C-alpha cells in the first residue's frame, strides 16, 4: 500500500517562519543594539551550542558524558594557536578548531567507549582533566596561567564585536538546523530508536556502535566550535576556564530544565539559564546552590522539562520530527474495513 505521511503542521511551519524572521532581525542587531547585548548573546550562544551537543549525546545517544569540556577547551586552544602562531584569522580558525576537536574525539572514544554508564561519565571527566593538565604544561600557551588572543589586535573593537556576534548567530542557527535536519532524517530514526532501547535498535538492524561514535564525533565538533567561539569573544584563555567541569554542569542544567531528549529543550533551557543568570548571579554561591537545587527538583518531579510540559499541555511540537501516517478515510468500506480514521494534530 502507498502511505501518505505528514512531516510538519501549520503550527510548526509558522514556528520556522517566525524563527527565520527573528534571525533576520537579530542579524541587524549591531546596527541598533547595545554592544553589551551582543556580548551577552555570544556567551549564551556558546552555552546553547554546548548544551545542544550534550543533549544529543546524553538525551539521544545515552552517553552521559561529564567531559565535553575537553573538546570545548581544545577548540579554544586550537583557535588561539592557529591565530597567534599560525597567522590564521581567528574567525576562520573557529571551524578549523572544531574539526581538530572532532578528530581528537576519535582516539578519545577508543578509550571512553570501553566504559559503561557511570564509569563512562567519570572516565570522560578524567580524560578532560588529562587535557587540562597537558595544556597547563605547554609553556607556549602560557602554561597554567593561560594567555591572550593577540591575533585580533589591530582590529577595531566594534568590528571585532560585530563580527563575533554574527559568527555566533551563524553558529547557533547552523547547529540548530543541523540537529533538526539530522533528527528528521532516516539517521534520526536510528538515534531515537537507540534512545528508547539500545537492545531493540541493534536487533532491528541499527548499527548502534557506529551511530554512537558518529554522535560522539559530531558532539565534539560542536563543543569545539562553542569553545573556539567563546574564547574569540573572551580574548583570554586559561586551562581552568577552558577545561572547567562547570561547562558540562551548566549544560546539564540547561538540558534538564528545557527537557532532555527534545530538540527545543536546550533552547528553552538556555533562555531560562540566561534569565536566571541575569537576575540572580549577584548572589554568587547561593545562586549556584539554587541552580543545583532546581536541577535536582526538575529531575525528581518534572523529568519532561519545560519543553515536554508545553508539548503535553498544548499538544503542539515546535520542531516536529514525527512521521504521522495519514490514515485513509472510511470512504470505501470494502477495502478500508480495518482502517479506523484518527484525528492527528
Amino acid at each position, binding site marked *: *500500500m*502507498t*502511505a501518505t*505521511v505528514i512531516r510538519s503542521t501549520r503550527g510548526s511551519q509558522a514556528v520556522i517562519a517566525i524563527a527565520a524572521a527573528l534571525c533576520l532581525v537579530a542579524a541587524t542587531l549591531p546596527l541598533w543594539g547595545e554592544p553589551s547585548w551582543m556580548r551577552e548573546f555570544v556567551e549564551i550562544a556558546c552555552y546553547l551550542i554546548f548544551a545542544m551537543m550534550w543533549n544529543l549525546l546524553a538525551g539521544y545517544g545515552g552517553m552521559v558524558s561529564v567531559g565535553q569540556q575537553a573538546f570545548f577547551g581544545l577548540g579554544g586552544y586550537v583557535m588561539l594557536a592557529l591565530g597567534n602562531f599560525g597567522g590564521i584569522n581567528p574567525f576562520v580558525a573557529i571551524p578549523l578548531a572544531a574539526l581538530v576537536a572532532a578528530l581528537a574525539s576519535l582516539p578519545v572514544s577508543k578509550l571512553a567507549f570501553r566504559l559503561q554508564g557511570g564509569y563512562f561519565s567519570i572516565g570522560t571527566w578524567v580524560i578532560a582533566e588529562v587535557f587540562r593538565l597537558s595544556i597547563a604544561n605547554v609553556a607556549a600557551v602560557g602554561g597554567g596561567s593561560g594567555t591572550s588572543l593577540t591575533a585580533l589586535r589591530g582590529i577595531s573593537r566594534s568590528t571585532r564585536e560585530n563580527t563575533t556576534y554574527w559568527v555566533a548567530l551563524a553558529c547557533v542557527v547552523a547547529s540548530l538546523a543541523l540537529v533538526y535536519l539530522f533528527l528528521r532524517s*532516516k539517521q534520526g*530514526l*536510528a538515534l*531515537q*530508536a537507540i*534512545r*528508547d*532501547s539500545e*537492545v*531493540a*535498535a*541493534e*536487533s*532491528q*538492524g*541499527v*548499527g*548502534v*556502535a557506529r551511530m554512537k561514535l558518529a554522535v560522539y564525533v559530531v558532539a565534539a565538533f560542536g563543543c569545539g566550535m562553542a569553545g573556539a567561539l567563546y574564547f574569540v569573544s573572551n580574548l583570554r584563555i586559561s586551562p581552568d576556564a577552558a577545561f572547567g567541569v562547570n561547562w558540562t554542569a551548566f549544560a546539564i542544567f540547561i538540558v534538564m530544565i528545557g527537557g532532555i*531528549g527534545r530538540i527545543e529543550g536546550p533552547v528553552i533551557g538556555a533562555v531560562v539559564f540566561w534569565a536566571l543568570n541575569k537576575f540572580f548571579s549577584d548572589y554568587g554561591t547561593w545562586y549556584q546552590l539554587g541552580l543545583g537545587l532546581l536541577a535536582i527538583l526538575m529531575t525528581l518531579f518534572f523529568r519532561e522539562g519545560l519543553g515536554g510540559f508545553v508539548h503535553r499541555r498544548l499538544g503542539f511540537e515546535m520542531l516536529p520530527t*514525527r*512521521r*504521522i*501516517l495519514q*490514515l485513509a478515510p472510511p470512504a470505501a468500506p470494502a477495502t478500508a474495513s*480495518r*482502517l*479506523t480514521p*484518527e484525528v*492527528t494534530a
Partner: protein
Amino acid sequence: MLLRVDKVSKSYGTLKVTRDVSFCVEEGQTLGILGPNGAGKTTLFNLISGDVRIDSGGITFAGQDVSGLRPHQRCQAGIGRSYQVPHPFGNMTVFENLVTAACFGARVGERQAWDIAAGILDKTGLLPHANKPAGSLTLLNRKRLELARALATRPRLLLLDEIAGGLTEHEAAELVAELKRIKAEGTTMIWIEHVVHALMSIADRLLVINFGEKLAEGEPVAVMNSPDVRRVYMGLEA
C-alpha cells in the same frame, strides 16, 4: 537449508546454559521450541540473533557463517527477532517503530519504508494505533508490535520468543492465524512457546530443550509422545 546450528555451546562461568546443541531449519519450515523454564531457550535465540556470542560451534545462515556478525548485521542478513519481553521504541510512534525496522533491517529508502510499514500495520491490525507512542500500547498490542516490527525488517527467518504468552485464548487464536499467513508467504520461523496447542497447530518440527541440551527433535506429535518429553516437560511418569 536456511539455518544450521552446529554443536553450539555457551557457558556463564561454570554454568553451561547451552551444550552442544545442533539442529537445522529448512527454508519455509516452522520449528517449534519447547522446554521447561530456564532450559536455555531464550539463550539459544540470543546466540542465533547475536545478542550473545557463542563459546564454540558454528551458526550458518543461508550458506554464510554468521557466528562472528554483530546482531544488526544478522538482522540485515535476514534474521528477524521478537523479544519475549517487548522492547518497543516507547517514545516513537508505532508507525515509526516499523519505519525504523524497515529502513535499517530491510535497508530500504525512507519512502519505501513508509509503504512497507503501513502495509504491515494493516495486516497485523495495528493501523488504528499507527500514530500513538509505542509505549502507550496494551500488552497484546505490544506483542503485536514486536511481531510487526520484526516483519518490517523483511526477515527470511523469524525468531519468535513466546509471543502468545499472557494472551487470552481468543487473542492467541488470532495470533496463530496471523502466523499461518506469514508462514504461507514463505517466511521460515522458529517459535519458542509454552502454549503447546498453539505451537502444535503451526510447527512442522519440534525441538525440546532441557538443561541446555537437546532432548528430542522431530515430527511434533511423535516428539510430544516420546517418553523423555512426557517425563521432563509434562511432568508425567512414562
